[in-house]
């Protein structure tokens, strides 16, 4: 019985909407501020999509489809009809909205034992966006889209997952995941090499000698941390960032391609370009009018652009990443990815 897999990736606007559904609505100081947490935003150098793909590969699925959520349910239905014509009898449908250390083999075993058309994985706080559909549900989905199946409650069985989960679209949970990964409280690990006690530094980082690192902390590839800065604890500076002279970042995440001005104090926040979300005060602020941070296209030093040089041992990973990044689903298309 052939098992297929589809990962649905929320688009930017939908990510923001879903995030606000999960908690109190945040005042946004600027209309130009973009949503801070997308499910594809790296977490300590990890890509949540890739982590799910690794889990899918381990259950023997050879390839999967990446689908943009922006497609309507009718379009999704016709795609699912295509899959059934290709011989798919069961479908693992993952909406990329949560990090869950889920044993997919156990989920499939549960689905087979219960013999219900749809199995929905959930934790104590609700659905995790992971669903298994059998042939009868696929036929229904082909006509109405998979959301119609979910409405039919008696067809759906709940798989209660009690392991580690975090919602990727919630800024607070994202920061909790950073903390847990840095302290070894979950299975995720920072992507760089360990350079000290609970300090991880990725390739091509430029760290001034005077920089104070307070673990647990992570600095992503090609990031520059300038004179007198303090990084940590419980801090993640993702790839291609610049941290200005004397700036302190603690209990915070700085998302890729962000430059922080000198002398700042960033705490309990997530900064993405010019947008800062303060997690304690639940406020989003645009730092651009004050000239405190900005989006940068790539990290430069002495007028020369730095690019990651893959190590020979990492060649498979880099090739894999290249496939994924070059196959981002466009708003209209599904993309097939070989695992």
């Amino acid at each position, binding site marked *: 019985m052939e098992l297929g897999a589809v990962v649905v990736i929320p688009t930017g606007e939908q990510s923001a909407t879903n995030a606000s559904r999960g908690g109190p609505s945040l005042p946004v100081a600027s209309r130009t501020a973009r949503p801070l947490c997308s499910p594809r935003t790296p977490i300590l150098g990890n890509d949540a999509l890739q982590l799910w793909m690794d889990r899918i590969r381990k259950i023997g699925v050879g390839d999967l489809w990446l689908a943009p959520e922006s497609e309507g349910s009718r379009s999704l239905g016709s795609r699912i009809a295509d899959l059934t014509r290709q011989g798919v009898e069961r479908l693992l449908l993952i909406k990329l909205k949560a990090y869950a250390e889920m044993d997919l083999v156990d989920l499939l075993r549960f689905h087979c034992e219960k013999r219900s058309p749809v199995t929905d994985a959930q934790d104590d706080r609700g659905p995790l966006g992971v669903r298994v559909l059998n042939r009868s549900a696929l036929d229904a989905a082909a006509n109405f889209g998979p959301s119609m199946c979910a409405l039919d409650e008696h067809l759906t069985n709940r798989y209660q997952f009690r392991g580690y989960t975090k919602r990727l679209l919630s800024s607070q949970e994202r920061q909790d995941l950073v903390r847990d990964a840095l302290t070894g409280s979950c299975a995720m690990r920072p992507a760089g090499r360990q350079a000290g006690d609970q300090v991880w530094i990725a390739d091509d980082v430029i760290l001034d000698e005077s920089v104070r690192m307070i673990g647990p902390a992570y600095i992503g590839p090609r990031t520059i941390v300038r004179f007198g800065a303090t990084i940590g604890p419980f801090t993640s500076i993702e790839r291609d960032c610049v941290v200005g002279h004397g700036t302190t970042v603690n209990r915070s995440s700085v998302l890729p391609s962000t430059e922080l001005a000198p002398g*700042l104090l960033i705490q309990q926040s997530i900064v993405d370009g010019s947008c800062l979300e*303060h997690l304690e005060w639940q406020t989003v*602020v645009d*730092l651009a*009018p*004050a000239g405190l941070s900005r989006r940068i296209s790539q990290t430069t030093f002495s007028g020369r652009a730095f690019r990651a040089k893959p190590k020979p041992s990492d060649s498979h990973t880099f090739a894999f990443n290249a496939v994924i990044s070059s196959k981002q689903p466009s708003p209209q298309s599904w993309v097939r990815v070989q695992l």
Partner: protein
Amino acid sequence: MTASDIQVFALPPASAHARRRMLRKHLFGLLRSSGSPIILDLSGREGLNHDDIDFLLDCAARLGGRDVRLLVVAGSDSNRVLLEVTRIASVLPVFNSIADALDDPKRLARQPAQTAQTALQNESPLPRSA
């Protein structure tokens, strides 16, 4: 100390150059000569730009360890975040409202570069002057 010893100034928008210049001159004069608390009220501002930040940092620098108390009323969470990010909140006491600034002498007493004055209790609301 009485209510009349405390002066409250609203920070004009950066576009109001003349008012901003006048406030700067007056405020810096007071910071040099006065021993009374001064409240700088940002409540009317939806956000702070680099001119505002420069102005506030200038004020903090001019205190220079003197016993003058300059209190800042953020007026909004986003202003408060900006004051924290720029470290202004580390050198000047920041409050959510003028009432908070006047009503909480314990918080005032904990702030840096201040004398231990607790006479702000039981004082009436102040007229604003700019």
